[in-house]
C-alpha cells in the first residue's frame, strides 16, 4: 500500500505526484527509498574483531533501534555510517551513493554519545545550534537572517528558546541533549542518527525525549537510527523481537506509513505548532 493512498485530505494532484515519486523510489522493498545500506561490513581494533560481516538496510521512514552489549560495536557502526571510521571490509552506501562519494552530508543529522565537550567551552546555546549549518555548502558564506530564523525555530521546537543565550556548559544533561538535537535538526535532515541519547538524563526527561522523537518519526519525513540501552523503551515502540541480528547486535525496526502532516520542508515550524 502506498503511504499517500489514504490521505483523503490532501489535494488529488499532490497525492498523485507523491504516489509517482514514491513509486519511482520503490526499488527493492516496500514503498520507500533506501537510506543506508551496509553490506558485509567488518571492523577490528588491535586484531580484536568488533564487527564481522554486518549487512543491513535502512529504508526511508524506518525507525531502527540498535541494541547490543558494551563492545558490540554499536558506536563503531554509527561512526562508519557517518564516515568517521572506514570499514576494513565491506561497503557503506548512503542514499544510494557509496559513502566515499557521498556529498550531501546536510541530509544527515548526527547526535553523538553525550558529547564530550569541555564544560567551560565559551559558547552559547545559539552558537552551538547554528553550528549545525556550517557544512561544506556554507564555506565562504555568511550567516544569513534566514539561518538565524532557523536557529530560533529549532530552539522553539525543542522548547529551549529561553536558554538561547546561556553558556552550553551551564545547562543540565537533558537540556544539553536538546541543544544537540536542535543542532542536528536545523538542517532538516532526512536521516537522524542518535547514539544513546537517553543516558545520563533523568527518567522523566527520557520519556519526554522519547515521546518527542516518536512524534517526529510518525508525523515527519525523518528516518531514525538510534542506539539505546533502554530495552523497555525500545520494545514499547519497536516491538518485542528484533528484525535482524548480526553478531552481538540486534536491529529493531518499525516502519512508518503515517501521514506527513507537514507538507512543506519547514519541519521545525510545524514541530513548534505541534507543541
Amino acid at each position, binding site marked *: 500500500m502506498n503511504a499517500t493512498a489514504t490521505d483523503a485530505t490532501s489535494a488529488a494532484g499532490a497525492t498523485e505526484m507523491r504516489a509517482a515519486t514514491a513509486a519511482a523510489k520503490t526499488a527493492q522493498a516496500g514503498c520507500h527509498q533506501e537510506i543506508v545500506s551496509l553490506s558485509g561490513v567488518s571492523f577490528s581494533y588491535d586484531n580484536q574483531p568488533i564487527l564481522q560481516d554486518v549487512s543491513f538496510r535502512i529504508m526511508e521512514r524506518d525507525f531502527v533501534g540498535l541494541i547490543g552489549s558494551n563492545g558490540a560495536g554499536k558506536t563503531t557502526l554509527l561512526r562508519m555510517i557517518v564516515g*568517521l571510521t572506514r570499514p576494513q571490509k565491506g561497503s557503506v552506501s548512503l542514499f544510494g551513493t557509496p559513502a566515499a562519494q557521498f556529498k550531501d552530508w546536510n541530509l544527515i543529522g548526527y547526535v553523538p554519545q553525550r558529547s564530550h565537550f569541555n564544560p567551560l567551552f565559551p559558547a552559547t546555546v545559539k552558537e552551538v545550534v547554528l553550528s549545525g549549518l*556550517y*557544512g561544506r555548502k556554507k564555506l565562504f558564506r555568511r550567516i544569513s537572517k534566514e539561518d538565524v530564523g532557523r536557529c530560533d525555530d529549532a530552539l522553539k521546537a525543542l522548547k529551549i528558546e529561553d536558554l538561547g543565550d546561556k553558556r552550553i556548559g551551564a545547562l543540565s544533561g537533558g537540556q544539553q541533549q536538546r541543544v544537540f538535537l536542535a543542532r542536528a535538526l536545523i538542517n532538516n535532515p532526512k536521516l537522524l542518527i542518535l547514539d544513546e541519547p537517553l543516558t545520563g538524563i533523568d527518567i522523566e526527561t527520557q520519556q519526554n525525549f522519547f515521546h518527542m522523537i516518536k512524534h517526529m518519526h510518525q508525523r515527519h519525513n525523518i528516518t531514525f537510527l538510534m542506539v539505546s540501552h533502554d530495552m523497555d523503551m525500545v520494545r514499547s515502540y519497536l516491538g518485542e523481537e528484533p528484525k535482524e541480528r548480526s553478531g552481538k547486535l540486534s536491529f529493531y525496526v518499525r516502519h512508518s506509513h503515517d501521514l506527513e502532516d507537514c507538507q512543506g520542508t519547514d519541519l521545525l515550524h510545524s514541530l513548534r505548532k505541534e507543541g
Partner: protein
Amino acid sequence: MELLSAEFFQRALIGGALIAITAPLLGLFLVLRRLAMIGDTLAHVSIAGVALGLLINVYPVAVGLLFAIAASFGIEWLRKAYRTYAELSLAIIMSGGIALASLLFTIGKSFSQNANSFWFGSIYTLDYTDIYVILGVTVVVLSMVLIHKKELFLLTFDEDAAAVSGLPMKYFNIMLSILTALVVSAAIKIVGALLVSALLTIPAACSLALSRSFKQAVILVVVIGEAAVLAGLWIAGVANLAPGGTVVLLLIAILVMCIASTRLIRT
C-alpha cells in the same frame, strides 16, 4: 616620554601590538582543542631552526619558521598515532627540538650571545625586516581566521561534528598548524621562546573564566593580549626591566583578577 620618540621603542610597540592580536586569537583555538602546550613545543623547535639560521647565515626567523612548520606536522602525525594522548606528541617533539638546538649551539659557540635573545626575547632589537615579517604574519592569520570563523568554531567545539558535516578536515588541520607555526616564530623575537606559550594561553585562560559566548571570548583574548603587551613594554622601558618578563607577569596578574572576579560573581 622620551621613550616614545625613540625609534627602537616605536618598533617594539608596533611589533608587540601586532603579535598581541594574533597570538591570543590563535591561542584560544589551541587551548580549546586541548593543545595549550603546542606553542611551547613549536617555540623550542623553532629555536633549533634559529640556531641553524645563525650557523649558515640565513635569516634566522625564516629557518625557525620552517622548523616550526615541520614540527607541527610531526605533532599531528604523532597525535594520530597516539590518539587521546595529544600531550605525549608535544613532549616528544619538544625534547627533540631542545636537543637539536643544544647541538647546533655547541657547534656554533660564537653566536651564543645572539641565541640568548631568542630564548628570552629582544623586542628592542626588532629591525624593519622583523616588523614586515610580523605584519605579514598578522595579515595572513587574521584573514584566515575571519574567512573561516564558522568552521574553526565548529572544528574546535566538536571535531567529529565538523567531519560529519563534510568539512575538509585535513585542510583545516594543516591550516591551523601552519598558522600556529607562523605566530610562534614571529613571536619568539618579541617575548622569547620560553614565554611564547604565555601569550598564546593566558588570555584564553582568562576568557574561559569570563566569557559566556564564543564571540565574547574572541574579543576578550585580544583586548587582554593588547593590554598586557602594551603596558608590559611600557613598564619594562621605563623601569629598565626585561620586557618578556613584565608582559607575562602582567598576563598572570590579569588572570588572577579574572578568576577572583568570577569567584565573587558566583558566590
